[in-house]
């Protein structure tokens, strides 16, 4: 059993990360994501996904979430939904709308939080063979879009300068590679651990 201190800590971290992500949508911090595409795509969006991911541990204890199990065997549903959400928020016009329309920004916060939570739910019940499809697809999408943002002369977002777009493109590509490596290392470690259990 977790002690109350542990329990408090287990809730405090996800809440803090989420609050940081959401705070970037509220003045005065909002000016950061309004002026810089990198703050929007590389800091706020990942914070929201991470907040969802970390929250899943607490959410999993709730009874309604427990019954979701049978709707997400092998993590299939979660992976597909998360992929759709990620793709949606990488469209330049979605990014623009989130800057201009408050209700769209709220949709962004809610959906990226859900994306993070679903991802954890899915990763915890899927074999590496299924994970590799999701990770491969998501990483290659982020890499190619990042490379495109970084190299094109077209201003893709009306809300951001070309320079801001190039910086975020480079950052997005680096983030994609980091996440790919992180998954690979995690998977290899898990495989080694289960191998040791057998021997």
């Amino acid at each position, binding site marked *: 059993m977790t002690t109350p201190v542990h329990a408090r800590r287990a809730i405090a971290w996800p809440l803090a990360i989420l609050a940081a992500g959401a705070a970037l949508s509220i003045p005065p911090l909002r000016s950061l994501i309004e*002026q810089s595409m990198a703050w929007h795509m590389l800091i706020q969006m990942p914070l929201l996904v991470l907040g969802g991911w970390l929250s899943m*541990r607490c959410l999993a204890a709730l009874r309604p979430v427990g019954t979701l*199990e*049978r*709707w*997400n*065997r*092998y993590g*299939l*549903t979660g992976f*597909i*939904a998360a*992929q*759709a*959400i990620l*793709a*949606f928020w990488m*469209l*330049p*016009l*979605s990014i*623009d*709308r989130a800057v*201009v329309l408050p209700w769209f920004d709220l949709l962004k916060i809610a959906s990226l939080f859900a994306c993070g939570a679903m991802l954890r739910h899915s*990763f*915890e*019940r*899927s*074999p*590496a063979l299924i*994970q590799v499809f999701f990770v491969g697809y998501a990483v290659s999408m982020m890499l190619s879009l990042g490379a495109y943002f970084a190299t094109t002369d*077209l*201003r*893709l*977002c*009306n*809300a*951001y*300068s*070309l320079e801001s777009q190039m910086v975020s493109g480079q950052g997005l590509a680096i983030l994609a590679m980091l996440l790919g490596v*992180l*998954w690979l290392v*995690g*998977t290899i*470690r*898990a*495989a080694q*651990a*289960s191998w040791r259990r057998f021997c």
Partner: protein
Amino acid sequence: MDRISSPPPEPAPSTDGLAQTFAASLVALLLGLAAVFYATDHGHAFTTESLRRSEISRQPAPIPKFQVVDASGARADLREWVSASKRTWIVDFVYTRCQTVCSSLGSVYQQLQEQVRTRGLTKDVGLLTISFDPARDGPTALAAYARRMQMDLGIWTIVSLESAGDRRRLLEAFGIMVIPAPLGEFEHNAALHIVDRSGRLVRIMDYDAPAAALDFARSLK
């Protein structure tokens, strides 16, 4: 951080619920595709710029009422002025201090002015530059810009908003997004906006293909 992956649950997960999972996955897939399809105007537009262009060509929008002021200080309602002129207008947006994209727009407009003159289209097509910086671009600044650009006022007109409070409405009506840039400059999307004789915005075209814009504007009667 937690490990991203953990080994598959042991013993192997029961296949109970697999049908539900497939159904839910299918729903997630369809909803995801529908959201992207809807947001991108059926897969046609991935940027705000292409979205506003395809929306306008499908459904032309009347320009709202604005009081504008020209380089001589004369005032008029923009839409009434367009209808009274009996010409199709190619409209662009600048601020006169601009050193970057507006300069290329300026030279595009100089070429257009030359073509309107040589092809004898003066009665059919007019060129209109609208300043979105009413605070700084009064009649004096407009007149200076007109001189600098060697504008032939019979073909090419520049106006500014009479009231600075109309700025946001103007930018929204034409789908222009202006963002502050270093050194007091602005960065903004640039295009050629075709406004027909009845004062409707009917097409938004690339500013690096002015000939196509001129042909299109001429074809509107």
